[in-house]
Structure formats: structure tokens, C-alpha cells
């Protein structure tokens, strides 16, 4: 498995929580949004999205509800829960710490300049 897939796999929960916290979304919409916002970086086997969504739903971090589109077709929208917001806040903070630590090692000059 490529390095990119490994990275996506280990961060998929944070990515999904972050997207859904912006607005409730359904599966296909999430795939498109991830691809568009990352300019194509986050493209993966679409079937792998649903196990991740169901895992988050089972953990109580998101909640799925069937709702009608303006066209009348039903789609399962995912909403972030209170528990999901709390988990996202933790994940954001650990991601920031990780990124800072990585930058201190990988790009020390830029970090020094920014201080």
C-alpha cells in the first residue's frame, strides 16, 4: 500500500469528522468534497469510506439520518454529535502538536523565522 493511502487510512476519522462538522453530508457528497478540497490528493477506493462512517456512527461520534434531497431522492446524511465535536477538538489539538513537532525537525529554518 502506498504511503499516501497509509496516511489517509490513519487520518480518515479526523478528515470525516472535520468535514461533517462543517455541514451534514452523505457518502457520495463526502467523497466529492474530500477530492475537491484536497485538489485530488484524497482520492481512494470509495467503498472504504462507508466502513469508516459506520465505525464513527457506532462510536457515537456521528449520527446518520435519511433525508430527502430537493429532487425527492433519499440520502443518508451524517451529523456530528456532541461526542464527535469533543473528539474532533482533541484530534485537532494533537494534529497541531504533531505538525509543529514535524516542522521543527523537517523545516527548522522556517519555524525559526516565524518565531
Amino acid at each position: 500500500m502506498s504511503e499516501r493511502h497509509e496516511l489517509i487510512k490513519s487520518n480518515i476519522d479526523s478528515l470525516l469528522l472535520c468535514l461533517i462538522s462543517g455541514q451534514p453530508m452523505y457518502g457520495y457528497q463526502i467523497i466529492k468534497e474530500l477530492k475537491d478540497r484536497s485538489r485530488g490528493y484524497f482520492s481512494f477506493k470509495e467503498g472504504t469510506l462507508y466502513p469508516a462512517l459506520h465505525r464513527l456512527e457506532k462510536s457515537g461520534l456521528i449520527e446518520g439520518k435519511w433525508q430527502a434531497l430537493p429532487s425527492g431522492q433519499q440520502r443518508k446524511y451524517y451529523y456530528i454529535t456532541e461526542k464527535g465535536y469533543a473528539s474532533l477538538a482533541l484530534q485537532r489539538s494533537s494534529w497541531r502538536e504533531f505538525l509543529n513537532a514535524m516542522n521543527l525537525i523537517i523545516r527548522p529554518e522556517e519555524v525559526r523565522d516565524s518565531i
Partner: protein
Amino acid sequence: MSTGIDEYLHNVKSSLRLEAPDEAEVIRELATHIEDEVKELKGTGLRDDEAVSACIRLLGSAKSVGRKIYEAHSQGTWQQALLTSLPHLLFALLFILNWWRGLTAVLILLIGIMSTAVYGWWHRKSGWLFPWIGYSLLPVIIAGLSLIYLPTGLTWIAFIVYIPLTLWLILRVITQTIKKDWLYLSLMLLPMPAIIGWFVAADWQGNFNAEAEARLYYDAPWIGVSFLALAFGVVTFVRIRRRWLKISVLFMSGAIALTFISSYARGRLDFIVLLLLILFLVSIFLVPALLENGVKTGRWGKYFEHRPMS
């Protein structure tokens, strides 16, 4: 819906093994995804069949998607783990605390287990239920065996009424359980090799004599420990996600129980009996898995199926 999509969703479904409402919801959700994707691909100029093929390629292997969704759903809570392992724990206590010598305790336990099994069967047939059904089969089988000792004139009751009725009931339970997931049948039958093993080790010869009772008394703590091994295996089974690990854990707990029997009933179980018990344990996992296809395609299931699984 196109044949390619139907086949894809069917393949996902065959790997899901979830409760019927959950399964229907997963398939519905994937179907809506496919609908959106195919519509968009057709908008780029692809033909119907090309759009469907491209969509299925983008989704990835149906079996892998089904298996991963199963894993997302397959982890039970600690409460479910406790409820599933409770009949094993109760049987363990029955022997460890030597309650088995009092008829009242045994009757209360069996009636409690059977009532819970009947209640669970007519409500949702959730995963926790199957070990309870397994223990409930014991009194049914023992009652059938004891009919042999009826006065000669009444033996016909066994042949005309009890045996066909019991066989029908057991076969119906088996087919409906396999239809849900063959692994539940293994979960249901898991204590059987241990029960038969300890039974044979106590030198059961048609009448429970004082010598056999004395042996059972000395074996009781180890019988209890072997049921504890099953309980521990079942708790782990409920809590882990991966299916192959679930199967391994159940098998290991059954094997540990048999190891206890062979260690503490040394000299009372010959090699052939032990070998038969091991084969029985293996068949508890092998036979339901082999039967699953026949039951799910309706080849055998239709004879016992009268209403859809809830």
C-alpha cells in the same frame, strides 16, 4: 437496476452478516452512492455499462467493502459480552460452588436459561441469544433420551410425538441461525463437546450411580473452570472486530475446555473418545460454514422457514 450493480450489492451483502435492518440500510446507502456516481459518470459521456463498470471499480472489491463494514458493526459492548457469556458463567458457578448437587438450583438455572432463550428467539434474535439456546437444547435432548426408560407401552410417544417434534424444532433453529450467520451456530454448539466430555468422564452408563456422582464431585471445580474458559472466549469473541479472530478465539476456548477434560479425567477417557471430541469441536465450525450456502440459497432452508428473520 443493472445486473452489474445487483451482483455487486449481492456480493457486499453476502459478506455483511449483520442484523436484517442494518443490512438493508447498508445496501440502500451503497445503492444511492452508485446511483449518484453512475449518473455523474454518464454525464461525462460514458455509456450505461461503462459508467457502471467505472463506478464498481471506484468502489473497490465488494467482498472487502462488506467485510470492513461487518468489522465496523461487529464489536459488541461490554454489556453484550457479559450477556452472551452469562450462561457459561452460570454453568461455571453451578459446578464451582457445587450447586449442581441440588435439584432446585439445577432446575432454576435450566428454566431461567430456557425462558431467556425463548424470549430472545421471539424478539430480535440478537447475537447474545445463541449460547442461551445452546444450553436450552440440553434439557430437550436429555428429556428425549429419558423417554427410552418409559414403560414399553408408552415408548411410542417418543417415536411418534417427541422425536419428530424435537428434530423439527432443532432443525428449524439450526437453519434460521445459519441464515443469520453460521458463526452463531458455532457459538450455540460451543459447550457441547465439553459437556459430552465431562459426561463421559463421569462414567455415565444410563444410570447415575454413586461412583459417578463422587467423580463428578471431585471434577466439579475443573468442570467449572472449563466453562469459565468458554465464557472468557465468548467475551473476547464479542469484543473483537475481525471475523477470523472471532472464529479462532471460539475454537481456542473449546480446545482449552477439552484440554481440561483430558488433563483431569486422565484414564477415564480413552484416546478414541478424545479424538471424537476434537473432531466434534472441529465440525462445530466446519459444518455450519459448509451448510451456509445451501441454507441461504434456500435449498434446505425452505423446508423449515415460515417467516422472515426479523
